């Protein structure tokens, strides 16, 4: 079922780069009668950005949610650092060093930056919350990222789209995730904020993170990614290396025009 492009890309990759940190293959997932994923494939190495593209309903978000543990896949195999991984919950995924920044960010609007950074993984000291330490750490993390937050005690609903995005990514980076799944990181942002976000993602690549980015925006995809994996009707139709392709070919693969 694998197309020529997939093989070509993989063979090309194996020779020059280390083993992928994450491999997901033959992933399928159905919701009732709707087959959201069938035979999806993606892999990503450390220090690499792979774009996951496809039309609406192609299964991009479903695949991300399978990797992040929000959905359980019906069939297929996930390898993390070469080992088969059982991902049945967000915690499983987190424990494997996989972190997800969702399209809707999954932030808590009424809570401050500190609470958002630590939600679900709060620091405690003798059973009680260590609020001082969380505040200190939050300030440190915010300083590390190129972001302009008024205070870590600001409720997130008062932040701009870019600031919220930065909080969501700060949360992920802070917990030492090695594999980052970014779902439409620039979809809700203006031009300037998109630019800052792309720079932030490139910074993360320099920090040797393995990054999968879901995006509709091919200009953004071509600016930051190393490889492009195309999903259509829940299936991986191919993975292209950026230097070997252009947006026309990617669009053809997304729409299926090249196979007609």
């Amino acid at each position: 079922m694998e197309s020529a492009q997939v093989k070509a890309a993989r063979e090309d990759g194996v020779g020059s780069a280390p083993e992928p940190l994450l491999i997901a293959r033959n992933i399928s997932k159905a919701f009732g009668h709707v087959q959201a994923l069938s035979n999806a494939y993606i892999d990503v190495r450390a220090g690499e950005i792979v774009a996951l593209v496809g039309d609406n309903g192609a299964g991009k978000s479903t695949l991300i949610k399978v990797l992040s543990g929000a959905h359980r896949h019906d069939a297929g195999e996930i390898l993390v650092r070469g080992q088969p991984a059982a991902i049945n919950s967000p915690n499983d995924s987190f424990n494997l060093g996989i972190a997800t920044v969702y399209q809707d960010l999954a932030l808590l609007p009424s809570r401050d930056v500190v609470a958002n950074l630590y939600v679900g993984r709060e620091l405690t000291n003798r059973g009680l919350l260590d609020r001082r330490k969380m505040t200190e750490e939050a300030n440190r993390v915010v300083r590390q990222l190129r972001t302009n937050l008024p205070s870590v005690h600001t409720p997130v609903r008062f932040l701009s789209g870019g600031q919220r995005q930065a909080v969501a990514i700060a949360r992920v980076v802070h917990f030492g995730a090695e594999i980052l799944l970014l779902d439409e990181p620039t979809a809700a942002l203006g031009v300037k904020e998109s630019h800052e976000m792309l720079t932030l993602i490139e910074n993360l690549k320099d920090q040797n993170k393995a990054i999968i980015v879901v995006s509709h925006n091919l200009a953004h995809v071509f600016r930051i990614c190393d490889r492009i994996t195309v999903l259509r009707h829940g299936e991986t139709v191919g993975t292209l290396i950026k230097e070997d392709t252009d947006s026309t070919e990617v669009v053809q693969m997304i729409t299926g025009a090249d196979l007609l």
Partner: protein
Amino acid sequence: MTAIIDKVKPSDDRPEGASRLRRLLGQREAQLLLVLVVFTLLVRAGGAKGFLGPTHFPIFLSQVAPDMLVVIPMAMLLIGGMFDLSVTGVANLSVVLVGWTFSRLLGTMDDTLLIILVVAIGLTAGLIVGAINGLAVTRLRMNPLMTTLATWWMAQGAATGVAGGESRHNFVGSFRDIARFQPLRDLGETFPFLQEMRISTLPMPVFYAAIVIFLGWLILTRTRFGWHIFATGSDRQGAALNGVNVNRVTLIGFVATGLAAAMCGIVWASRLTSAPPNTLGGLELRVIAAAVIGGAALTGGEGSVLGAVLGLFFMHMIRSATIQLGLPVYWEFFVLGAVLFTAVAFDAWTKRRADTQ
């Protein structure tokens, strides 16, 4: 990276002077406290000189205490994005079960054992209704408004059904101690100032309320579970994606509220040594309104224990003031409604203002 660091404004963790005061006054709790103080001064100036004075205050506290047991878990439920209308039915069911058990088992066992059994039965009723509410909302995904309206009616119906139109009076004398025992009475003889300030006359429910307030505050602001309550109410899906067990938060919230309502009923039964099935009326809206006046958002994610305490104080102060000023008591609900309206309008106004900034 240094250029990046320079861009970051220092975060104002410890604002000095004026900005600190402004931030304090921006807090709902501070605003409400100010309103309560002004209200008290106005009522006193209006003729009720003893309003919340040394004689009135302890009595006032013991009047507020049973509601206080319920308003704290209700506020936590609201912060977690849920609410529970069934508390009145649960409290009345608990009252009736207490009376019924006494009338059936009096004399068949040791009095202390009987009291323990009675309390256990009352609390079990609260536990069961709370668990039904919680499971219906989480497992069956039933709407909380309709679910708790239904369980309210079922609990209330069970209360009147069990009572069968009678009010039980066969209480063990020492059962009164649950509501009337004054734990500091002896201490008042040693320390006269406790007696002068009437602190030694405070009855048990005030202490139950104090414990519930402290536990509520501790859980909400100092434990992971408390932050999970906020997270669940702030964005249920977002919290779940981050590993918060939102169904557990909701279930525990409903069970705690049910238990508190049952405890409220037990206190009332002990206070009245009588068990009519309509002992409590309007408890549900009173505590929900109090929590909302105190800053809890019906949409979840916002609110505080202190706010709920002050909100409930305010509601009871209005009732007390109406009586002490000799105003027609029939207008009490008009005033309560007006206060609630103002609080909600104020909330909407601050939100609108914040959104346009």
